[in-house]
């Protein structure tokens, strides 16, 4: 069972789940994924000391009004590494969390032992416009995000109480604050990806309909120097939820090869 830690990062309260032993690994979740410890994290915790904070406005972390841009979240997590006294860590980010992870890597590759991006959003891709997530009802989101809709059950809300609905609204608000327009990207990020000096693995679901492998995954793999691209055949936008064992294995292998941490 992961432990819940309540931190204050330069005055911003953070709920974080933590478990496992080994090299430190920071996992940044996607939209709607905060505060949950799923199969993927359990698998990673067998090999790493896994830190899984909820973004401000997600899970148990309250909204933070000062966050206006994804780079604010990137600095927030660099502050978190400082507070945890982690000089270097493996960084894994999925979808929206992958966007934050990429921003961090452009700022501070020297703090990262390795970088794993799982179907990240965050860059403008020639020939692709992300379908407008905020206009989707739940069935449309499930169809767009999941190749295997059963995997969506992992993120299903526990009930329809006012508390749950308010949390969902808070989470949507936190994402919209930084991702409504431009929708799901930072126009400056793509060119900056060339700065990333960390060994990078780009994981992609073969059936991603939010950010398809071609052209999105291929663009990421091309823009990050030396990045490796690994495709998961039975996944949509969230391979770590759809094929958790396979993705966790890929992460473990990649980190072992490129870790630089003992």
């Amino acid at each position, binding site marked *: 069972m992961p432990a819940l830690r309540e931190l204050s990062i330069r005055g911003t309260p953070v709920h974080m789940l933590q478990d496992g032993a080994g090299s430190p690994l920071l996992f940044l979740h996607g939209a709607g994924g905060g505060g949950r410890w799923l199969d993927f994290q359990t698998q990673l915790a067998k090999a790493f000391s896994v830190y899984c904070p909820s973004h401000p406005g997600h899970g148990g972390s309250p909204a933070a009004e000062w966050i206006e841009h994804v780079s604010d979240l990137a600095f927030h997590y660099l502050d978190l590494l400082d507070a945890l006294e982690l000089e270097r860590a493996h960084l894994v980010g999925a979808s929206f969390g992958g966007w934050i992870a990429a921003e961090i890597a452009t700022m501070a590759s020297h703090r990262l032992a390795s970088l794993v991006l799982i179907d990240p959003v965050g860059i403008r891709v020639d020939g692709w416009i992300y379908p407008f997530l905020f206009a989707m*009802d739940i069935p449309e989101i499930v169809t767009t995000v999941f190749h295997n809709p059963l995997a969506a059950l992992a993120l299903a809300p526990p009930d329809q109480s006012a508390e749950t*609905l*308010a949390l969902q609204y808070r989470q949507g608000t936190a994402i919209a604050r930084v991702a409504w327009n431009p929708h799901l990207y930072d126009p400056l990020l793509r060119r900056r990806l060339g700065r990333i000096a960390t060994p990078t693995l780009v994981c992609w679901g073969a059936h991603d309909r939010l950010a398809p492998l071609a052209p999105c995954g291929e663009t990421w793999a091309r823009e990050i120097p030396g990045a490796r691209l690994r495709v998961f055949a039975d996944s949509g936008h969230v391979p770590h939820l759809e094929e958790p064992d396979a993705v966790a294995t890929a992460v473990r292998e990649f980190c072992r090869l490129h870790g630089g941490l003992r």
Partner: protein
Amino acid sequence: MKFYYFHLMPYIIDHDEPSSWVTLSNRHYDPALGHTLYNQYLDQLEAAERLGWDGLCVNEHHQNCYGTMPSPNVMAAMLVRRTSRAKIAILGNGLPLRENPLRIAEEIAMLDVASGGRVISGFVRGISAEYFSTAVNPTHSRERFYEAAELILRAWTEEGPFPFDGRYYRYPYVNPWPRPLQKPHPPVWCPSQGSSETVEWAAKRRFPYLMVFTPITRIAQIYGEYREACERHGYQASRYQLTVNVPIVVAENDAKARALAEKHVMWVFNVGLRMHPPFWRPPGYMTEASLRRLLANPPKPPSELGFEEADREGYLIYGSPATVRDKLRVFSDELKAGILCSGMTGPSHEQTLEMMQLFAEEVMPHFREDARVDETVGVGR
């Protein structure tokens, strides 16, 4: 009581698409028919002045068949030169939807000067769906509204040039020519759905509050909150700060009026306001406190509102002139609303004009104890 003629300028069609807003394809819009409609609607507004209405209202909505006035100031400009007495109420401009809200200060000042000081300037946030059709970030909506309002009011009242350095809007030189004719500035109204933050904001500034298409019990509740807020700010609300917009159908007898209301007013709710559910609730448009209030007592989507319920809850007024007078007494005597902003829709342009005439002759004169009062004096500024 004062009577303002409110027009939505709808493009009335039946369609099977899930939303009349944002995604309803504009292939449904026939510009040739639109030409006829715009001119008929403007004729109706002009007729309203001749028939004795005190004000004419236009409003801003985007990408829908419910109301085809994306720029209300354009419609107001046409009315300014075709009317001479009636107030022209723009209800309103969606402040946060503008990238350059100084333009609103300029346009309203132009209209005010050209009309000889007849303009009322509504400040609205724009309804939820408009954040999808303009791509403005709904999480910035409230702050942009307050900031744009402050900018516009300062632009109207302070001698320029001065710099303005806001979070969303920044100008090295605020110095609009022309300045508005009305002093200190044109009256500002706040059409709203009743969020407590807006009630407080409007009451503090003596800006009239307009409830649009709301059931009577909720109007009574919000009016109560508004009056309380005014008292907290050290004054008693004038009745001309309490405005209501309720659709009206009047005919020779109740049965005939009911048949017209069932068809034409219910179109506004059932089709005009049909919306893909996510368009009702963009993230961050509401405060979490407002959301929780809403969840505690979730309103029915207008598209699911039945006629019997709409009638029972007071979403609309219909009947013979005598019945309409009785129903209006609830608004004038019990709710003590000072201004009624209502439009009428008949089955055709000609029949709408006839309905307006019937209302002007058989209803309006019974509510004219305040005929000599100028409702805008000391109100909204």
